[in-house]
């Protein structure tokens, strides 16, 4: 288990009800982490619609996570 920081934007923030949370997780990758929080918060967006950033860089969904990583799930937004 490791503790990581998660940040949510846009519709994910709305559905999670918070913009940031610290989480202790067994998830090995951002993909596993998203699945975990998707179930918990009832996220409606499929993973394929999102991008993930780890420590302020866009990364693959299969990137290994380590303790104290800062993970941001970013949905596309179009408002103008």
């Amino acid at each position, binding site marked *: 288990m490791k503790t990581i920081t998660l*940040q949510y*934007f*846009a*519709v994910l*923030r*709305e559905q999670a009800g918070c*913009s*940031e949370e610290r989480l202790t997780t067994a998830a090995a990758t951002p993909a596993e982490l998203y699945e975990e929080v998707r179930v918990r918060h009832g996220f409606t*967006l499929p993973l*394929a*619609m999102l*991008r993930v*950033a780890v420590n*302020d*860089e*866009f990364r693959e969904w299969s990137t290994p996570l380590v303790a104290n990583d800062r993970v*941001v799930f*970013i*949905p*596309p*937004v*179009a*408002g*103008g």
Partner: protein
Amino acid sequence: MRAFSFSSTPIDTASGRAALADPACGGYVTFEGWVRDHNEGRAVQRLEYEAFAALAEAEGERIVTEAIARFGVQRAACVHRVGDLGLGEMAVWVGVSSRHRAEAFAACRYIIDEVKHRVPIWKKEHYADGATEWVNCERCAHPGEHVHGAPAAAAAPDIAAVGAATGADFSRQIALPEVGAAGQQRLADGAVLVIGAGGLGVPVLQYLAAAGVGRIGIVDGDVVEASNLHRQPLYGVSDVGKSKAAVAAARLRELNPATTVAVHAERATAGNIGDWLGRYDLVVECSDNFATKFVVNDAAVSLGKPAVFASVYQYEGQLQVYLPREDWPCLRCLWPEAPRDGLVGNCAQAGVLGPVPAMLGAMQAMQALKILLGLPAEAVPALHVFDLLGMHWRTIKSARNPGCDHSPRELQASAIDPATLEILFPTLEAAHASGLTLVDIREAWERAMDSPERQIEWHLPLSAFMQGAPALPPDGRYLLVCAHGVRSLALAEHLRSLGYPQVYSLIGGLAAFE
């Protein structure tokens, strides 16, 4: 060789070139300034250059160092002549070597513009009629109106000249060392296409026009609605119902009469944007939908134009700059699966506070001005994500996606969000390739005027729908097509209400492909 030096003998460009050679460099750009035979209508026979060497060398070196740092070029140098020069002789030489050519051109231009603007060099012209005159450095371009002194005072004559003509006064931005008279001229020479005159577009248009950008194109097919005003305060209650692009253009002309404003009161499509964007230096994307954002992305990539994208959602915004460089990601690199409109909310559905698009739009204007001024807009490619509720700004580094070839991708029917009613396609072929069944709902006489290659096989005119039940199997996936996308949208809505779940309307109709 020194970054900046004076020479009292003819400039040796060969040794300058040799000093800049570097195996890491793929390009070398050079500028030569020559003595010409006329100035402000008077025939010139020869020149004398004089410089305040101690001050001038320090300032010159600073400029070259700035250029290397700003544009990331490998090496750069500048040599300026002093003493007597005859016609055709080289007065100044700038050389830049770099990995890629774009940076080399930009750095070279920056150096010569800044040297002429900032380095104290005086020029004595000897005229054909025997007279002589000190016409000094470029920052005092209008002799007699100016006293040499602090750099801040140097901008005054330029402002006076511009202000007298139009009433505009750019003194507060010309005072910036990075702008100066040369930068103001660049803005005046610049042309920016703005897609969307809504929450993002309003501040973009206002700040670009106010800054003195010479030519602005406004693309927006919408009319002003009362619900727009809280976040689009360029418009007033009396503008409701009028074309946004036309009203915005009138306001901008008032803000800066010298700016030429082109009005395109229609939606940007793959069919029309290429013609427009080709005539501008860059595009600022301020629309409220993904379809348009990707159309703009594709046009910017294919024409090699910088593009400044932004989007907002409630209290948040995203900002991304595309630069036409091999190693730079485009919008499709970031979002390989082009997002579907309707899946994530827009301002109408999700709500928004006015200052959110205002802030993002102001940042877009900032990025656009930096690009026009030749200042680096972005050190590395990134998506900037702003949370104005929590007041956080995250910069997420992005990179060219190796799986993205920077070319438009065809939308497949299976990827279309059922909530969407209207779909934009870059070409008629792409619409066919999507897997949707195309249905031409125009009347027979309209079809008869078409060229054969535009014929859509299935023809069910709107008049036939109006007379009775449509002869369409309800489980099919249809794309209704008319001339401009108005009738097809109305019919698509009507058919949805009759229990056709997958009927869509082609945005812009066939006119979009002309």
